[in-house]
């Protein structure tokens, strides 16, 4: 019973992190048509950034968290302006740029901080009772922040002016331009929000789990799965598929040993992809 | 009948693009399929050539049921076609566009191609020669080495026809061959189409330029996916009611 409860908590939390990452990735993909293969590296860098702020500069966790996210968002603006825009959405060239960016970030953190596994100190130490079960307080905190953020994102996309513009560009770029929507600004916003969300995911992961320069690689694969399975251009789908992946990776390790988990989960994803090549929630 | 469709119907989701459409094309005829934009003319072509699966109905070619065949199989049977948009291999030169379309006659097997056998070389030499001939016929010989994407619109159209001719079709489906052409180009095109017929190719043309009436033996008018009248050009032109309803009153005046 206890293992079941713990599994449910794991599934939900993992799902929330995947969804945050997936939405960030999807913003960039849908608006700019760029498969941001550096998303995992951004995720990792943000986790390290937060670690540095807390441990090296002694900032309290609650201050370091927003600073990290804002810094990532600002970095996103720079990346959009100086790396993505000159590539003119050419698939091959953006791929090269993303891999270069990812390589630089990973190498840098590996060179200077990669000599041991680190962890961001907990925001709220200790555990909290949840009925008869005990749960790490940070997990509850992360879960709450995650849910608040998800609601915030839904509202942002559905209700705000910028959200509507982003959706418009996603659905019909030329039509959007004709309404006077400036693509470059919306693209910048999308990349910076995308990087910000990746940073949030990174800080969560860095706090709850551990920090190495290579955590991004694993997460990137999950995010790709998520976005493709949800369908390009889909927003709602990310929530469902994020939940599904959370379930796969939160629950399967309980019943299956080691590498079999990855094998089974990836076969499942591939099968789904072959059944519905355009994803399950994508338009058309 | 060379080509015959029976009760051809196509649905896209809830939208019925083509409904119960029947058409007959006899060997050696030029048949025009006319109608306003969005009437479903190109959809009919795509159903005949197997690009879209048919919702219901049948397509018969030379008495054989070809419903549900893949586009390349349809091409192999002898139905060539041109496209309204993107009708070319843009990155190929004009000449390559034509030579690459010589897939069926003469045909070289994979073995021949890979090992560059005598037969393959002979075939290729023949193809090169024939391609020049075809380009000469459609008047594109001078631009043979230009990239297809750099051609002006009218030339691209003609190249589409050249490409279709390379398959040596028995039936040629032309999708708006006259659009984007100036009157003198139109005259040459009409002449070219007529000479193709004289070489024994049966032709079905989709057009909304009324000048095509000069060329056709028979005309089928389609609107909203349904055939609304059929007959000789004179008969159709005389059918005032149809014309005014679907093309505007000025067509009649």
């Amino acid at each position, binding site marked *: 019973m206890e293992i079941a409860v713990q*599994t449910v908590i794991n599934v939900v939390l*993992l799902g929330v992190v995947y969804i945050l990452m997936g939405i960030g990735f999807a913003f960039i993909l849908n608006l700019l048509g760029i498969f941001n293969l550096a998303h995992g590296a951004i995720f990792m860098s943000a986790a390290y950034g937060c670690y540095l702020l807390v441990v090296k500069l002694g900032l309290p966790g609650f201050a370091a968290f927003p600073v990290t996210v804002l810094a990532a968002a600002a970095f996103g603006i720079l990346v959009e302006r100086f790396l993505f825009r000159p590539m003119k959405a050419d698939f091959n060239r953006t791929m090269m740029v993303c891999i270069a960016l990812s390589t630089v970030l990973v190498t840098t953190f*590996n060179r200077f901080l990669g*000599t041991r596994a*680190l962890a961001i100190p907990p925001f709220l130490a200790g555990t909290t009772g949840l009925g008869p079960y005990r749960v790490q307080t940070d997990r509850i905190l992360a879960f709450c922040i995650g849910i608040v953020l998800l609601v915030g994102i839904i509202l942002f996309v559905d209700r705000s002016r910028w959200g509507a513009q982003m959706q418009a560009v996603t659905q019909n770029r030329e039509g959007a331009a004709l309404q006077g929507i400036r693509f470059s600004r919306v693209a910048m916003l999308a990349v910076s929000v995308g990087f910000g969300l990746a940073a949030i995911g990174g800080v969560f992961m860095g706090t709850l789990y551990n920090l190495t320069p290579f955590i991004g690689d694993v997460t990137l694969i999950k995010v790709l799965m998520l976005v493709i399975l949800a369908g390009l251009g889909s927003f709602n789908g990310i929530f469902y598929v994020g939940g599904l992946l959370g379930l796969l990776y939160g629950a399967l390790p309980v019943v299956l*040993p080691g590498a079999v988990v990855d094998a089974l989960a990836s076969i499942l994803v591939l099968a789904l992809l072959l059944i519905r090549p355009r994803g399950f929630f994508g338009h058309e | 009948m060379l080509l015959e469709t029976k009760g051809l119907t196509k649905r896209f989701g809830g939208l019925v693009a083509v409904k119960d459409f029947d058409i007959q094309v006899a060997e050696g005829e030029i048949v025009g399929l006319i109608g306003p934009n969005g009437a479903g003319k190109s959809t009919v072509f795509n159903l005949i050539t197997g690009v879209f699966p048919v919702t219901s109905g049948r397509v018969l070619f030379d008495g054989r049921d070809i419903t549900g065949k893949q586009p390349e199989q349809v091409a192999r049977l002898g139905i060539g076609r041109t496209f309204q948009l993107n009708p070319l291999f843009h990155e190929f030169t004009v000449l390559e566009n034509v030579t690459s379309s010589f897939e069926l006659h003469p045909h070289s097997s994979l073995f021949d191609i890979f090992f560059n056998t005598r037969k393959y070389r002979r075939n290729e030499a023949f193809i090169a020669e024939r391609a020049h001939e075809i380009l000469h016929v459609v008047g594109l010989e001078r631009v043979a080495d230009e990239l297809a994407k750099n051609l002006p619109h009218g030339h691209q159209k003609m190249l589409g026809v050249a490409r279709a001719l390379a398959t040596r079709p028995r039936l040629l489906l032309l999708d708006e061959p006259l659009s984007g052409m100036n009157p003198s180009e139109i005259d040459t095109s009409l002449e070219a189409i007529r000479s193709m017929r004289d070489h024994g190719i049966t032709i079905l043309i989709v057009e909304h330029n009324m000048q095509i009436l000069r060329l056709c033996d028979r005309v089928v008018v389609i609107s909203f996916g349904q055939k609304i009248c059929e007959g000789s050009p004179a008969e159709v032109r005389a059918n005032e009611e149809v014309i005014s309803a679907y093309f505007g009153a000025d067509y009649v005046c």
Partner: protein
Amino acid sequence: MKKTAWVSVLMVLMILLAVVPALAGCGKAEETTTTSAPTQTTAGPTPTTAAPSSTETTTAQMETLQIGVILSLTDWFSVVDAAEKMDIEYVAQMINEDGGIKVQGKSYKVELVIEDGKSSLDGNTAAANKLVLDKKLKFVVGPGAFFNLATTPIFEQNKVLHVANYNGLNPAEMNKDTRYAFLGLDPITQQSAALKALKLYYPNVKNVALASEDATFPAFEPHFRALVERTGLTLAGEPILYATQAEDYNPIAAKIKALNPDAVWMPIGIDPTYFGIVKGLRTLGYQGPITFPVDAPSVVGALGDSATGIVGILSKQVEDPYIAAPMKRLLLMGDPKRHVFGLAPNALYLLKHAIEAADSLDPTVVRDKWETLTSLPTLYGDGFPSGNQLYGLPNHAWAHPIPVCLINDGKVEYKPWILPDVTP
């Protein structure tokens, strides 16, 4: 047909690319006094004179012995190996301060040639080739873990004596035919110490849950089962295996807890996985002791309050009252608080003593002598051979006393070092 022009340009470029380094390679080959024929076993190390820029006048007169080192400085395994690089350099410095390696009355200054194994077998192959073919080295230290799969064949073929930091028990890494392969630490003995310490400090423990990274585990499994039995414990349930590359280790922790064991034993893994599982276990409210190879300050730093009830092996700290003298000296050479794995440095240390014992710079002679030795000094105290039967080689794998510490409530308590059981 317009292609010809650029094809020519390209070809010229490619020829230049191929010819220039080739010429450079030829030039280099002529410089060295040894011939490149690998069959010539008498070829010693390249005794070039020391670099003139050396500031130390005492060592300036010494000849140099280049020793190759393979460590993964980039990619995922650098979490382990980047720290090793610093320490092996300190050990080399230590050896040089002590007058270098003394062979036939001459002193040789140790100069390390460190290559990056890139955390992949491909990278290790390249690194080994570089050391063997390019630098013509006759002695190599490393790599660690299963990367020996890639390097062993190259060393064997070129008769290069190599001391692996530790290995993954794959027969391809070390078997009766790999006569030039030596092992700095027999990994089984390390785990024997872990169980012994567990039994010693938690006498009530009757059964242990075994959780391991899955890839190397199959090779270790029979040995681990034997160890558990020999220590007088039983396994709680079947071993729990997990993939190295996962984000969330909580499911693993939940699975371990569900076995309800007296203690948890994690023999194989890397720090991130250990920490993840311990963190998970403690938040789940698991109270029993956990043992795994740790670096005490890292554990405390990464786990905070969760760092309790941990039986750690292999933590090397200056404040450890039981610490062996050479290890203490190594720690004091840099920041004493740093994270020391101490496996590659130990391999180098062993190699130095083996060469001196053989009194020769010929790898074959050293090997023959080494196979007769039953004791050698290590950084951890006196070393002894282990696993002669297992590897089918006499005295090729070595073991040494293992440091032990207990961590409770974030406090580290050092315990006397444990002499592990010899693997048959």
